[in-house]
């Protein structure tokens, strides 16, 4: 009886192992791109949170919001790199690297959505219940120094203004202003 049981167990294990090896779905780059989009959205929400804190004038809230915004920005930047690696790995047929890059993106989204809990409704950008990868290193946090003057020189301020204005130049005529005003 014991022998038979052993045979059943070993047969089951062998089949399960074979299934596990063959059934692991290939990484879907579209799914990875969707997760990257989620991270981008979280980053926009984090920046909007900074804006609200700045307008509210609460220094502590602003410092916290800035730290959160910086952390999400880091997660987004790392995931952009992971996505590029994933695309190259898929093109090269390197499933292992593709899977590990995908796991990195999932982990970054999980950490970012956990950090943004309360700012975004639960489950919307959710990856909190998904498998987590390596935790984001503490030194990955590079909080914005909100006390530093971002433009020490007129030239730097000019460049910053130009960049800001360049982002505004395209677009449609505002709904509430005549075209001549823009």
């Amino acid at each position, binding site marked *: 009886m014991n022998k038979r049981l052993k045979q059943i167990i070993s047969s089951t294990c062998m089949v399960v192992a074979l299934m596990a090896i063959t059934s692991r779905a290939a990484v879907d780059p579209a799914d990875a791109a969707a997760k990257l989009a989620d991270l981008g959205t979280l980053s926009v929400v984090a920046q909007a949170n900074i*804006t609200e804190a700045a307008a509210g004038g609460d220094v502590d809230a602003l410092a916290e919001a800035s730290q959160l*915004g910086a952390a999400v920005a880091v997660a987004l930047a790392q995931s952009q790199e992971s996505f590029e690696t994933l695309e190259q790995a898929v093109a090269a047929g390197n499933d292992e690297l593709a899977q590990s890059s995908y796991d990195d993106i999932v982990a970054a989204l999980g950490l970012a959505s956990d950090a943004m809990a309360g700012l*975004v409704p639960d489950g919307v950008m*959710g990856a909190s219940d998904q498998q987590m990868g390596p935790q984001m290193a503490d030194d990955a946090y590079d909080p914005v120094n909100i006390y530093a003057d971002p433009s020490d020189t007129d030239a730097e301020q000019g460049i910053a203004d130009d960049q800001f204005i360049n982002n505004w130049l395209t677009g*449609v005529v*505002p709904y509430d202003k005549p075209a001549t005003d823009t």
Partner: protein
Amino acid sequence: MIKHSMTIGLVIVALAGSVTNCKTYAAQSEVASQAKQAIEYAEAEVEKAREAIELGKQLITQIPEDHLLMPDVAQVLELASENWKTAVDSLKGAEMSASKMGSATQDSIANDYAMLAKVNAGVSVSGAKVVQMSITYLDAIANNKTGSLRIIRAAMQDALESSSQVQLSYERVKALISQKYSK
């Protein structure tokens, strides 16, 4: 004896397989549920943006025409207008994709529609947030909160970059899904 063991083993695996299938359906249903939640969130943020625009109309009347930052005001309005259009159009796109989820003939197709709906909702949220930030900037100008202007500017700059990333990712998702079905 060995044959029997193999048969029993296969039965166990078949049972395990049906559990795996259940998990797959659950995962697909989770994606659909996330898409619906994402659309609800986008609707709420678009509504907030709409309210912000109404506030913006009042704020503009408070800013003197010869104000030093009037060129900024015009540009912010342009930015808000552009992003408002993005928010509204993307929300419609998300709702359209979501409506196709139910009528899809295969689970994988329904899953892809859900993915498109969710990402489109994200584009909508990003646009709506930029509108809200633009009006916060106008509020700071109208109410002389000059201390916060630089921080808001920097945050808007970062938000615009992230928002571009969201739109780029949406285009990628759309293209990658199209590729799947063009093979």
